[in-house]
């Protein structure tokens, strides 16, 4: 298998087959919290794509060139969470300075991504699966695209749900969870493409 096809396989697998939200249950907080409006969901999705791709690159470099040679791999959880927090801060400052338009579009979602468990989850999974640098970045990008797809789809569904007459106990969280369950069943169908 050439390296290009394997990268395409990584993207398909992370974005659809092992969808980060619907199959692996990472980033559920923001998935349920932000999916009320389509526009907000899209902004959050873009910010997540940006941060996860960048953080998986940095995490991969740090792990290979700092933690492994020093035999400090058991510190990876602490190192990764600090790196992610610092990275998000720097990205925020950089974007604010260089491109206020993008900064306004991403708004508050950028700083809040730090504790989105999908970011740390991707960094840890990449290390666990022993992916190299390019594969890690690809996997990060694919995962984030999967997150964006899921949250935008859910936002679309929720805008319809709000207009329906739902039994009282199911209003609020339960009906959103039910929609997510149906989406999850649909995404299980993708396991056939690999």
């Amino acid at each position, binding site marked *: 298998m050439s390296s290009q096809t394997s990268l395409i396989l990584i993207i398909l697998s992370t974005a659809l087959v092992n969808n980060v939200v*619907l*199959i*692996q*249950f*990472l*980033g*559920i*907080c*923001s998935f*349920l*919290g*932000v999916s*009320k*409006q389509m526009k*907000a969901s899209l902004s*959050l999705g873009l910010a997540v794509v940006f941060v996860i791709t960048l953080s998986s690159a940095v995490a991969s470099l740090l792990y290979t060139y700092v933690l492994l040679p020093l035999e400090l791999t*058991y*510190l*990876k*959880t*602490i190192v990764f*969470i*600090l790196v992610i*927090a610092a990275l998000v801060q720097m990205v925020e400052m950089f974007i604010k300075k260089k491109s206020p338009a993008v900064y306004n579009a991403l708004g*508050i*979602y950028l*700083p*809040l*991504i*730090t*504790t*989105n*468990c999908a970011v*740390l*989850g991707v960094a*840890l*999974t990449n290390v*666990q699966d022993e992916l190299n640098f390019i594969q890690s970045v690809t996997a990060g990008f694919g995962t984030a695209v999967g997150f964006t797809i899921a949250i935008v789809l859910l936002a679309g569904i929720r805008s319809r749900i709000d207009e329906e007459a739902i039994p*009282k*106990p*199911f*209003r*609020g*969280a*339960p*009906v*959103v*969870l*039910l929609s*997510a*369950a*149906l989406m*999850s*069943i649909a995404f*299980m169908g993708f396991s056939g493409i690999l």
Partner: protein
Amino acid sequence: MKPWAERIYNGVIRENPTLVLMLGMCPTLAVTTSAVNALGMGVSTMAVLIMSNLVVSLVRKVIPDQVRLPAYIVIVASLVTVVELLMEAFVPVLYKALGIYIPLIVVNCIILGRAEAYASKNPPLLSLFDGLGMGLGFTAALVVVGALRELLGSGTIFGVDVTMGILEPVVIFVKAPGAFLILAFLVAVLNACHIKNRSDKLVESGCDGHCAACGSPCPDKKEEAAK
């Protein structure tokens, strides 16, 4: 009621972190494929929560206000690493089963949420009991979801076959969609009870403003503050 008993009642029943506040959803959905996994996850999270509440409360007067969140994250991450290494050494089977969700205890909303909302303002002993109560509430919710999924999905509870061949297990309940389904119905049942008691109180999705420390995006609240 004594203050420490009140803390435990508060954590398990009144502000149950999973079923009432809807925090820490990721592990609730991900590791509840069996009651044993759910119990393991609940207990390890509880251990981290009790310790982190205690430590945060002890150092609450030393840490400057501006850097308190990074400090809390470092405290929690260190404790999680300790728990992770202990589990790898003593319960390798459970460690394998829970996998990546053990290090991810670091970003569990409940832990940072309690550190910020309770432990940073209260004395050590009460914070410890707050951690115990919240931990028990989280564990209880996880075990209920885990047991239901295991019963419906594989026909067992804690590995013991209880269907006696009468019922055919529905495999989807131990797969990903089953987690969403069970949780949806659990919250709906709780909502129904609430409606009987108090007509206006419904469990809303997302953060409900309790996620301030968790950092997961709560656009409504923040945008209102910006205006």
